């Protein structure tokens, strides 16, 4: 089955590459898929509201207003929940066309919004029911929780949801390791499963026919896609590719490259600029899948990743032994040649952000003289891949500039003035940025001042 699917997809991929090299004007704008996704989400929300509208005869008195608000917020929260799963289901078209970082941001925003909707739903429903029954809010709350069917489960779901929201809140997250946060997050799957039955049994709009079937199918599909792309596909790839560590090579202070080897790696169809989530099967690393960018063009036998020592986890990576098995999820990310619309390309790297940029510098289709790389680092020893970059630049006829020195000494090189001096015809470039968030923000602002269109600035952040 997979082989058939692969063959079917192969010509389309070839066509993609052909178009990158060909005339850029004929391609769809880069934001077509993200806009389409958001439109679809909006239409779905309208359909849910229409369902409520159709079933509601009138809204009478405080009870009517409160119960109505409770039903609307409940429906919207229930609609949003599977969407949150789908955003994180690693669906290839979304990963590739929208980008993992943007999906993660959408997921975080929608997640917070959903928790607020659930809170509003609980408050207004109980309050509204209390009005209708002429009981106190507390009495009605107890009654709803213990006497309404499936509401014990619904209550547990809400508590789990609020617990996760609390733990994920920025302040708390700082005090929590990535791993602990990650596993607490998994309890939300349980919450979603627990919360489902009360919607079907008590939901006034979901108790009959097509609405009920569609709603259930929507939840089932979300869970199936999640299981398929996050469990089954990685498991299958694991068996097929047999990835293991070939070499760990120091690149600079606290920076190592990990070279993986495996079978049939060309079938992964990884592209420069993409990343994998790697799970090294070694002590202390086994249970976490961290995102790492390819730092060289993918090779049928080897994949190279470069990792900066940012904590205990990366330090353990530096001590990995050759032969260690690796479980890889990916490739992910839309930070690829597919984004290019202009003839000229500028790559902007900051610090260890050079990792994906290094791979793009090697592979982006561009004529001699059309490709420029600006590499910002605070200290000379922080510059990695210096020789590799120089030889790529020489071979491709690309321009390469190192902008080295602390800001206090050299000033900020990423201003509109400096950039336009360094790169002629800046507004005719596609720009790829990878680096610390502060640098990226400053660079985007400077580029906008120079007249570079927002749709020509491609930025991938790795703050998950």
């Amino acid at each position, binding site marked *: 089955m997979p082989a058939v699917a692969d063959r079917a997809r192969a010509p389309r991929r070839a066509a993609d590459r052909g178009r990158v090299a060909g005339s850029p004007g004929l391609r769809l704008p880069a934001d077509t898929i993200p806009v389409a996704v958001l439109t679809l989400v909006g239409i779905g929300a309208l359909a849910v509201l229409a369902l409520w509208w159709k079933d509601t005869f009138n809204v*009478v008195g405080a009870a009517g207003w409160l119960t109505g608000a409770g039903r609307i917020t409940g429906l919207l929260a229930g609609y949003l929940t599977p969407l949150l799963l789908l955003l994180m289901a690693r669906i290839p078209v979304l990963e590739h066309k929208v980008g993992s970082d943007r999906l993660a941001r959408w997921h975080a925003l929608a997640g917070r919004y959903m928790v607020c909707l659930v809170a509003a739903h609980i408050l207004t429903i109980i309050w509204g029911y209390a009005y209708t029954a002429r009981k106190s809010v507390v009495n009605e709350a107890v009654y709803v929780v213990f006497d*309404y069917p499936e509401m014990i489960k619904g209550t547990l779901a809400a508590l789990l949801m609020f617990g996760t929201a609390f733990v994920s809140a920025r302040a708390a997250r700082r005090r929590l390791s990535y791993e602990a946060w990650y596993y607490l997050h998994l309890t939300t799957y349980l919450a979603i499963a627990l919360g489902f039955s009360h919607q079907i049994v008590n939901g006034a709009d979901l108790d*009959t026919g097509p609405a009920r079937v569609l709603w259930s199918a929507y939840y089932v599909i979300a869970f199936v896609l999640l299981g398929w792309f996050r469990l089954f596909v990685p498991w299958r790839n694991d068996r097929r590719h047999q990835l293991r560590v070939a070499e760990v090579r120091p690149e600079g202070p606290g920076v190592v490259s990990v070279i993986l080897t495996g079978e049939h790696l060309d079938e992964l169809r990884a592209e420069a600029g993409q990343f994998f989530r790697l799970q090294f099967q070694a002590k202390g690393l086994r249970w976490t899948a961290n995102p790492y960018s390819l730092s060289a063009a993918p090779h049928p036998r080897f994949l190279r990743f470069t990792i900066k020592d940012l904590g205990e986890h990366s330090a353990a990576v530096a001590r990995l032994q050759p032969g260690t098995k690796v479980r890889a999820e990916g490739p992910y990310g839309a930070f690829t040649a597919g984004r290019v619309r202009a003839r000229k390309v500028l790559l902007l790297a900051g610090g260890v952000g050079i990792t994906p940029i290094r791979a793009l510098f090697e592979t982006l289709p561009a004529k001699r003289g059309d490709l420029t790389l600006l590499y910002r680092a605070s200290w000379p020893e922080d510059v990695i891949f210096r020789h590799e970059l120089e030889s790529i630049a020489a071979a491709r006829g690309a321009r390469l500039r190192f902008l080295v020195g602390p800001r206090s000494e050299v000033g900020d090189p990423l201003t509109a003035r400096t950039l336009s001096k360094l790169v002629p015809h800046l507004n005719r470039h596609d720009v790829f940025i990878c680096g610390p968030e502060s640098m990226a923000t400053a660079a985007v602002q400077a580029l906008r001042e120079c007249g570079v269109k927002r749709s020509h600035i491609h930025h991938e952040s790795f703050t998950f």
Partner: protein
Amino acid sequence: MRRAIVAGTATVSGIVLLLGLKPHSSGSALGTSSFSIGSGSNSSPSTSAAAPATTAPAAGNGQSSSSAPKSSPSTPSTSTGTKVVTGDAADTRYGPVQLQVTFSGKKITNINVLQYPTESFRDQQINSYALPILNQEAMSAQSANIDVVSGATYTSDGYAQSLQSAIDKAGA
């Protein structure tokens, strides 16, 4: 933070707008048309001494008493001018409502709810308080021209329809 405020404001105003666009009057359960019992009847409902208490539906069970067939023709049991008429089952969004009405002459003396929506627990909750109110309204109005019970729009509507059909049958 700004985004949160925008999203919150947009959501609240959206919901308020949606709720605001719906009609807010409870109005008559039978909508615009109002009915009354048989033309020209001069029955004076309030004068009757001690109307028999209406039968409240058995809690938690829509088919209280005998499960009457949905469109059973009225079966007037004529003894001392008392007629028991089963109204048509009125389909509502949440299930059928069907009444059995006892007439003494032209006067409604008892209303028995044979069927009402019990699909969900919420339906049962709503109808357990709405039906007694509707029974009371109908007894004192002596017609299907009764007010909607708030929170039980659909049941009120079905109730009035079934009652009207029973009245029509009794009058015929």
